[in-house]
Each structure stands twice: as structure tokens, then as C-alpha cells.
């Protein structure tokens, strides 16, 4: 793909994310997105053949984005506790700076599985993200910081907690800024996962 085409593709994804967040997934159509980008609908279809394909490409895009951030943290030579804090921080930061991204993940990807059933089996579309979380867990256990347990019991605790906080934030229920919770949440997660 040419750089120009790649850039355009990202623009479409970004624009779609914003429209989905403000108008809702089902009420936003491909022509709506094209219009907002001043593109022809025909040209739009050169990039994404259908709305379902667009939907799964977006989740992959988010997974790669978050996966890369996590990879940087995983590759740092720091303790598992430090890594835990950085992951929480990164997640909340993304939720503040790119709320539409986390919003899409929580409200669209997880809530409309029928849209994703053909191209996003299992965790296929969030592979990059999940792989990095796995590495974070695996290395944590291996170095003795984290307690050995089933992957999903740990994964559910970690991601469910973070997702829940972002959801509360989105509903304007949280009295404080997300960043103000980083310390406590890190403490809680680490305490739940650590070896002793």
C-alpha cells in the first residue's frame, strides 16, 4: 500500500471512530463517513468493501495501536509492579486522549459480536493486544512477581477492571479524573495478581 493510501485509510478509520462515538454505530452509514471526509462513496468502497469489514479493520487498528504501546512497556527493564502501573497509565491516557478508541472497543466490539463473527473469530482481531498482555503475565510469573494462575482469570481481572473504570468515566459517574485513580488501581491489580 502506498503511503498516501495508508494515510487515507487511517483518516477513514479515525473519522469513523469519531462518528460512531457521536452518532452511534448503527445509525452511521458508509455514505455518512464519505461525506464527512469529502470522499465519493465509490472511492470509500475502494478502501473498505463493507461496513462490517470496516468495523473489524477498526478493531484490528486499535489492537495494533494498544499492542505497540504495551510492547514498549514489556520491553522496558523494570519490575512487574512498575509495568502494571505503566499499563494502567497508558490505558487511561488512551481513554482520555482517544476516548473514541476505547469507546469503540467497549461499546461496539464487545457489545455487537454478530458484526464481527465472520472475520474476528475468538480474539483474532485483538491478537496484538492480547499477545502483549500474555507476555506481561508470562514474564511476571516467570520472574516470580506474579502468582501462577489461569490466563483468563488474570486477564478478566485486569481488563475488566480497566474497562469498567473507563465505562464509568464515559457515563460521567466518576467524580475524579481517571489519572487520579492510577495509583490505587495499580495497587489493587498488583495485589490481586502478585505472588504473595
Amino acid at each position, binding site marked *: 500500500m502506498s503511503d498516501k493510501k495508508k494515510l487515507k485509510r487511517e483518516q477513514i478509520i479515525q473519522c469513523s471512530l469519531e462518528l460512531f462515538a457521536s452518532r452511534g454505530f448503527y445509525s452511521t452509514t458508509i455514505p455518512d463517513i464519505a461525506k464527512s471526509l469529502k470522499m465519493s462513496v465509490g472511492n470509500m468502497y475502494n478502501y473498505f468493501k463493507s461496513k462490517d469489514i470496516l468495523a473489524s479493520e477498526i478493531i484490528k487498528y486499535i489492537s495494533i495501536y494498544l499492542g505497540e504501546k504495551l510492547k514498549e512497556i514489556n520491553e522496558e527493564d523494570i519490575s512487574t509492579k512498575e509495568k502494571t502501573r505503566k499499563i494502567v497509565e497508558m490505558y487511561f491516557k488512551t481513554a482520555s486522549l482517544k476516548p473514541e478508541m476505547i469507546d469503540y472497543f467497549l461499546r461496539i466490539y464487545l457489545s455487537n459480536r454478530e458484526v464481527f463473527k465472520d472475520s474476528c473469530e475468538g480474539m483474532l482481531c485483538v491478537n496484538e493486544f492480547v499477545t502483549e498482555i*500474555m507476555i506481561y*503475565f508470562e*514474564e*511476571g510469573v516467570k520472574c516470580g512477581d506474579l502468582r501462577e494462575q489461569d490466563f*483468563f482469570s488474570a486477564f478478566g481481572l485486569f481488563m475488566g477492571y480497566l474497562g469498567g473504570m473507563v465505562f464509568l468515566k464515559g457515563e460521567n459517574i466518576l467524580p475524579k479524573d481517571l489519572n487520579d485513580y492510577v495509583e490505587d488501581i495499580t495497587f489493587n491489580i498488583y495485589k490481586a495478581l502478585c505472588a504473595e
Partner: protein
Amino acid sequence: MKTKMKILWLSAISCNGNTHSFLNYPYMEQFLDDFEFIYHPVIDSKYLLQDIVSKQIACDILLIEGAISKEYKRADVSIVEIIEKYSKIVQKIVTVGTCATFGGIFRESGYENASGLHFDQEKKLEDFKYLLDKTISLSGCPIHPEILANTLYAIKKSATLRLDNFLRPKEFYAYTVHNGCTRNEYFEYKVDNHKFGELEGCMYYEHGCQAPFTHGSCNKILWNEVSSKTRVGLPCMGCTEPSFPRQNLFSTKKNMSIPESLPVGVNKRVYLTLAGITKAFKIDRLEKKLFDD
């Protein structure tokens, strides 16, 4: 009459498993035309063990089976002394089996510093360093007879064998035991949940199969010309490796469900990505019983 290459088969702290595995070599008649044992633990030889330890009998190849400790004696002579004496006169030394190569099971036998000839598990030893150029390691518990016989033929032919870091011929040890396993598809598509006693399923994830990170030709050169452990449904125990025997051999060491030992040379990120992709799909053919109608 053609001259036969002379071999001394010397057992140290061993179970004679390599001796008996070697007796399964299918072309024994030809082999015994080409080689002569000046001493062998089972096959009759011209000399007695007592002759071997008290004199210095002409010999071309020294085969050592079993873990080595200077405390261990054969016919009242320390095994180390016997090795020192014969290693000087032979062209090549072959450590046969994992005990003679890395220490293996009998590394734990309680003899002082029991180890392989050049290695104590992964650690390189100083003791016989001057023999490194002469030695070929054939690890495996036991050694496959063809691997031993053909290595001896290579020595006879003066063929150059490329060796790995543990002095093992790459022709046999560059492969993993996973290569050629009939359960490969189950590994590729992550169909584990293997219960013993079934033709289906991969033992890597649940039952401690070490084939993807064990160097050897078990599934390339079949055992007894018939099968292999993994083919029948028994996990590979990693018996060719310095770490043999690991602990808890029938279960896979996992950290939060992720296997600690991954296929050799495969980066964790690559492995998890591929595993994640294949796990997302359900392949009916592999989920079903192999012979289902």
C-alpha cells in the same frame, strides 16, 4: 582380510540401555564385518575387562556409555584412568547416550561429581578439555542404534561431521523431535486437550511434550524402524538434552497458561501471535476423531 576398526565400548555409571539399544541395529552382520569390539558389555571380545584395564590394547575408537566420576571403578580401576589411557591412543571418542554426554540420570547417582565427559548438563568442564577435538557426542536416552552405527561409519570413512555446540553431529541433532511427528497438525492448529490413549491431539500444551525444543531425529529416523514416543502418544521427555531429566515430566510448565518452553528459536511474541490466530478457529477435521465416519 580387511582390517576392522577396533572399538572399545566402556561402560561407566550406566544402565546398559545404549548397549541394548545398539543390539537393535538391523545390519549387525555387516557392522561386525567392518568393526571389531576389543571389549563390549555383552558381545564376546578378544579381551577381558581385566586385560583392558591392566594393559593398553590397540584401539581406534573409544565409546563411553554412562556418567563419569573418578570414584567409579571398573575391575578396580577408576573409570577416569581408563578413559585417560585409551583417549591418548584412539582417533575418536564417542560419548554414547545422555549420561556420558551430559551426566543424565546418573549424574544424580551420588558419585562424586558425576557428569558427562565434557559437560555437566550445559556447563563445559575443564577436565578433559584437551580431548574436545577428538570427541563426538551422541546424546539420547538411549541412543538410537542407527545414529551410533552411522556415526561410527562416518569415522571409518573419515567423513567430516559438522557438530553443534555440544559436539553432536548436526545431521542428527539439527532437527527437533517435533519434525516428522504424526501429531504435527494438532500442534499447528492448537488442538491440545489431548487425553492419553488417543490417536488425536498434541501433548505439548498439557502433557509436557518437549519435542518442539528437543534436538533429535526420533521422528525422522524411527525407533526400531517402527514408531516414536510422540507418534504413539507419549510426550517427548527431552532425553537428548543437557537438562534431562527435567522435573515433572508429564506436565507442561506454564506461566499463566503460557508454556514456559517454546519451540526452539521461536520468539515468544511470534509464537503467541500464531497460537492466538490458530486458536481463534475451530477446524472440524482436527476436532473430530481421526477414524470417525
